[in-house]
């Protein structure tokens, strides 16, 4: 059941006439629903903006939320769900903020018991429902993008490249190393070598539970790339099982230096630095 342009303009007029009480009641309902997690002044501003956007859309003859006339309303709704999603409200709480508009409007209509008014209200109600569903959709999209961002941030966090000593950088790898992460590590490590002009890098894999062929290949490629750039890599913290895997997979570590622990690796590097500084 959708609104006719006629009905739309009548609702626009009704909202205009009762703007004050509708906004007040709406704000009240939303505040109660969110249990004080947003200040009522802030909520009042939001509902007033939304009420205005609804009124404008209807006055411009919007009979469907997808209409050109409802563009501003859609923008407002997006903004609301965006904010709610980022502030940690649930999707239901977000949608209920819009549903409450129906109740507030119904109260403004007052006592009208004829069937025509009821039909009109139903059409209006389904318009608002669609607006609420629209916030739901937007909410989900925003949350997905937040999750994607967080995944990226985690990736950054999980691959710190630190300067350990003059001319020595280290990357302590912790957790499962998939191909994407291995690639990020590789690029960051090599860039840090350039930025700090460090001729030595220690890749510590104490915190890596398992290594498959692909990951071992990534580590090997990093070592070769570092050599091409003029730096030497030492791999430390290889666990017994990983050593077994490496051998079982037939991966050639060749002449790459390996040390039992990060401390051993650092001692080894400093020793080499001393020898060359003579």
């Amino acid at each position: 059941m959708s609104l006719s342009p006629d009905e739309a303009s009548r609702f626009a007029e009704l909202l205009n006439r009762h703007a004050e009480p509708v906004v007040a009641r709406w704000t009240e309902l939303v505040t109660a629903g969110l249990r004080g997690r947003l200040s009522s002044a802030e909520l009042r501003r939001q509902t007033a903006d939304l009420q205005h956007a609804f009124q404008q859309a209807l006055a411009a003859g919007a009979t469907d939320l997808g209409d050109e006339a409802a563009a501003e309303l859609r923008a407002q709704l997006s903004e609301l769900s965006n904010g709610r999603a980022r502030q940690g409200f649930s999707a239901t709480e977000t949608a209920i903020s819009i549903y409450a508009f129906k109740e507030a409007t119904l109260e403004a209509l007052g006592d009208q018991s004829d069937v025509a008014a009821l039909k009109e209200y139903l059409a209006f109600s389904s318009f608002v429902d669609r607006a609420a569903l629209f916030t739901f959709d937007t909410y989900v999209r925003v949350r997905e993008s937040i999750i994607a961002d967080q995944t990226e941030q985690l990736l950054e966090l999980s691959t710190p490249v630190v300067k350990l000593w003059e001319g020595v950088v280290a990357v302590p790898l912790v957790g499962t190393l998939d191909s994407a992460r291995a690639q990020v590590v590789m690029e960051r490590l090599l860039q840090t070598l350039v930025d700090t002009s460090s001729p030595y890098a220690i890749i510590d894999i104490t915190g890596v539970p398992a290594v498959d062929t692909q990951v071992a290949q990534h580590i090997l490629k990093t070592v070769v790339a570092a050599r091409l750039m003029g730096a030497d890599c030492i791999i430390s913290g290889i666990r017994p099982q990983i050593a077994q895997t490496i051998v079982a997979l037939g991966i050639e570590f060749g002449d790459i230096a390996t040390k039992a622990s990060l401390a051993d690796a650092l001692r080894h590097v400093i020793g080499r630095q001393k020898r060359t500084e003579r």
Partner: protein
Amino acid sequence: MERVPVLKIGDILLVSIQIDMEDQVALQLQEDLAERIVATGVHGVIIDISALDIVDSFVGRTIAAIASVSRVLDAETVVVGMRPAVAITLVELGLSLPGVRTALNVELGIALLGRRETVTIDGDDEPADDGSDPAAVHTS
């Protein structure tokens, strides 16, 4: 055709490649360098490729050839300043620049050549190459 300038600094020839080289320019550089090594009698060549955003197999091959020719003419070549993205790409391409020495930047490259000289003066014929020299990274 453009030419890559070759500068002499003390006992070193410094080549800083600043242009996207045509193949012909790279070959010309190889010739120029051999002539300058003989004419100046230097014992070290530094090729700075920090401005290159790619090194393909042709340029890689030319660099390897320069290093080999220089060695025959008693000069050590160090390639410096290779960018990370270039190094990663070369590894994927399968090009390893065998026998070419590398350093992160010009300064470390000069230090590497300087050490080689010290060793030679000490009467040690072979440069320290047992893997104990940090900058003496062989890319083989």
